[in-house]
């Protein structure tokens, strides 16, 4: 499965970005190949409106199976992503991506 994280940095020990729309990076962990893929979301940061829209669209392009984040996408984006059969987990605030992944595996994160 491919797991996407909203991340403040580029590596496995970066901290989860609490935001969805204006997240710095989207880091995708492929469970099979155990590799990390990086998507830079910085172009979206400058948007006043539509940051959530733009990031949701990026998620659509990238198509992970699971999204792990902090606050979670707003209602509309969440519905759109769930329509793509994406599972969304929230409340991974202040954890490293590695810790967040562990929490997800242990069922400690909340699914929305």
């Amino acid at each position: 499965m491919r797991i996407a994280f909203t991340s403040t940095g580029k590596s496995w020990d970066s901290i989860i970005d609490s935001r969805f729309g204006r997240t710095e990076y989207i880091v995708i962990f492929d469970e099979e190949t155990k590799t990390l893929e990086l998507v830079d979301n910085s172009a979206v940061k400058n948007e006043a409106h539509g940051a959530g829209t733009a990031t949701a669209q990026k998620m659509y392009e990238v198509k992970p199976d699971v999204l792990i984040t902090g606050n979670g996408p707003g209602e509309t984006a969440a519905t759109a992503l769930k329509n793509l059969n994406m599972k969304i987990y929230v409340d991974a605030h202040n954890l490293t991506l590695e810790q967040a992944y562990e929490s997800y595996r242990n069922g400690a994160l909340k699914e929305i």
Partner: protein
Amino acid sequence: MIKKENLKIAIASGKGGTGKTLLSTNLAAFLSERESTLLVDLDVEEPNDSLFIKGNLIRKTEQHKMIPQWDESKCTLCGECTKNCKFHAVVQMGKFIAVFKELCHSCYACSELCPAKALPMHPYKMGETAEYSYNNLKLIESRLMIGEEQAVPLIHKTHKLVEENFSNSIFQLFDCPPGTSCPVIAATENADFVILVTEPTPFGLHDLKLAVETMRKLHKPIGVVINRSGIGNDDVENYCKTEQIDILTKIPFDKNIASCYSKGELVYNKLESVKHSLNEILDSLKNKIPCQSLQGFETLKGI
């Protein structure tokens, strides 16, 4: 002579906190002692007038904006809607069309240009308008829902409601939001005259200049009220004189005004200085606006 049935006065300012609400509520109550008066609170993000005009609630009306709703059964996933929306409010993601309500400007482009008619427009609640009655004074307050970001559609709806239902009020006062951007433009739309409230400080002066520039662009006749007169400096007064803008009155700084205001009380019946200022405003307006209703209005003297 303007043979109007009513007189529309907008009360605006560049800077927040100068005393728009203080003036709007007290002037409205003062005028209503003689003629039917309407006060409209268009500061829809933070409406405060109802804290001071404690009238009876007559009615609450939900206000809606129209937004597209996706009809999956008709959609051919052609993607035209995504191309047509300039606000990123309608976005196709694979087999799903997402509509981002807060971003929608209700232009109807996606809906009317959809070849399959799969995005019909539906009403979506963005605010509420409440009507209160207090003797001869009616208060219309519009309030934007928390989470809604656009003030302008609600302001327009409120103007429409006033036009349709309250045109028989002789005096119509519009308490505007602060600033100079589009909510203020929308709020002062139909005004015959705009009163700009300021304070005699550097912030007051800076923002007054912006407000004056805005009103001149809209070709609105203006007058200035200097609130908290006595503090700060003379720069605002000098600016008005240089620009030949009438100072309708100066309300002197008085901690008692702040005290009454803090409790949600009207102040003109308690402080002679404020009543005097309201009379001065009335006198100035009489000379400025050849309106029948205004000419016949006797200035109120004494407490």
